[in-house]
């Protein structure tokens, strides 16, 4: 299992992936070179602690930077599924969405969360450059004629 696959086991968004790569690098620099490490949040500390020893042992002073360069190249090449939400999700909601993907899709996609309050509810997706709206707003627009007809009953 390569590094990226291991990281994506419990990392669902691109934002989280970049964040975790950064704190992992910092952590390994601290271990290998004794560099000063930043103060981690409990959640980040827990995630670092959950990594298996075999994963961290594959890094040494000689390969740590080439491996991270390679990893960043792989991240750049990722084509994440963009998910527009009507609300600002917390980590809990992001994990729930990731778990849904893990449970319902054959391949777990990396996704990128964006916020659009105009959606009202639901999601809009951008997959491989194609936008599709599955939000409450799109449902209202689909029912526009019916809604207008109902309104016009009161106007005319």
């Amino acid at each position, binding site marked *: 299992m390569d590094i990226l696959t291991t990281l994506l086991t419990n990392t669902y968004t691109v934002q989280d992936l970049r964040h975790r790569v950064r704190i992992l690098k910092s952590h390994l620099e601290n271990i290998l070179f004794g560099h000063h490490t930043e103060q981690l949040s409990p959640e980040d500390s827990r995630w670092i602690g959950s990594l298996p020893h075999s994963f961290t042992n594959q890094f040494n002073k000689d390969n740590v930077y080439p491996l991270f360069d390679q990893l960043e190249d792989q991240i750049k090449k990722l084509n994440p599924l963009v998910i527009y939400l009507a*609300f600002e999700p917390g980590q809990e909601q992001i994990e729930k*969405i990731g778990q849904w993907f893990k449970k319902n*899709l054959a391949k777990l996609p990396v996704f990128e969360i964006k916020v659009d309050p105009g959606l009202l509810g639901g*999601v809009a*997706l951008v997959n491989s450059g194609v936008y*599709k709206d*599955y939000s409450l707003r799109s449902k*209202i627009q689909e029912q526009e004629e019916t809604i207008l007809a109902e309104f*016009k009953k009161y106007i005319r």
Partner: protein
Amino acid sequence: MPYFDFINLIVLILAASSAGAFFYLQRNHPGFHLPGDNTHSSGHLEGDSNLEGKSYDTLHSATKKAQAILGMAELDAIKVTADTRFYKEKLEDKFEQELQAASKAAQELIKQQTDRTIADFDNYLKELKSNLEKSDKDYVSYLTFLKSDTDAQKNQSQDTIKTQINQIFVKFEENLSQFLMDSQQRSVQSIELELKAARGLIETYKQQQLKVIDENVIAMLEKTLSLVLGKKLSLQDQVELVYEALEKAKAEKFII
């Protein structure tokens, strides 16, 4: 007056005669001089004394003749004056008589002429009076004719004017009626057009407003729902809607 003129005439004749005698003597006797005249040369003094004596004699005789002539002339003048006075009185008497006769004849003639003129004037006055009376009758009759003619024309003019006024009134009523009908028709048409235009504007405005409402009602609904749902929907509800949307995307095979 004639008396003094006659004397003067005589004196003038005498003076002329004296002057003529003097010049005659001087021509026939070149040494003749009047007394006191010293303009001649002294070489002739002796001859001159003789001539002077002769001259004095001549002059003396001439003076005497002149005095005689003057006396005769005075006598003749007195005689002529007396004759003149006589004939003058006689002529004056005759002139007086002739004048009286002529005056009398003239008076007679003037009287006759005056009488005749008066008679003619009386006749003329009578004729003039008769002519005036006739003219007056003619004038009165003409005035009567004029009055009757004027009355007739007046009546005729009044009838004509009345008829024309009646026609004008009838025509005016017709024109007024037609004008009022046309005005009413035009007003009605104008009002109908205005009404139609106003209705069109209202309908256009209504359609525009309805279009605006149509265009905005969904946005309003979305905004309303956004405001309402943003407060009413819990995170769990939002997650449920996300699951529902993802299920739909999966069903449409947008995500596999």
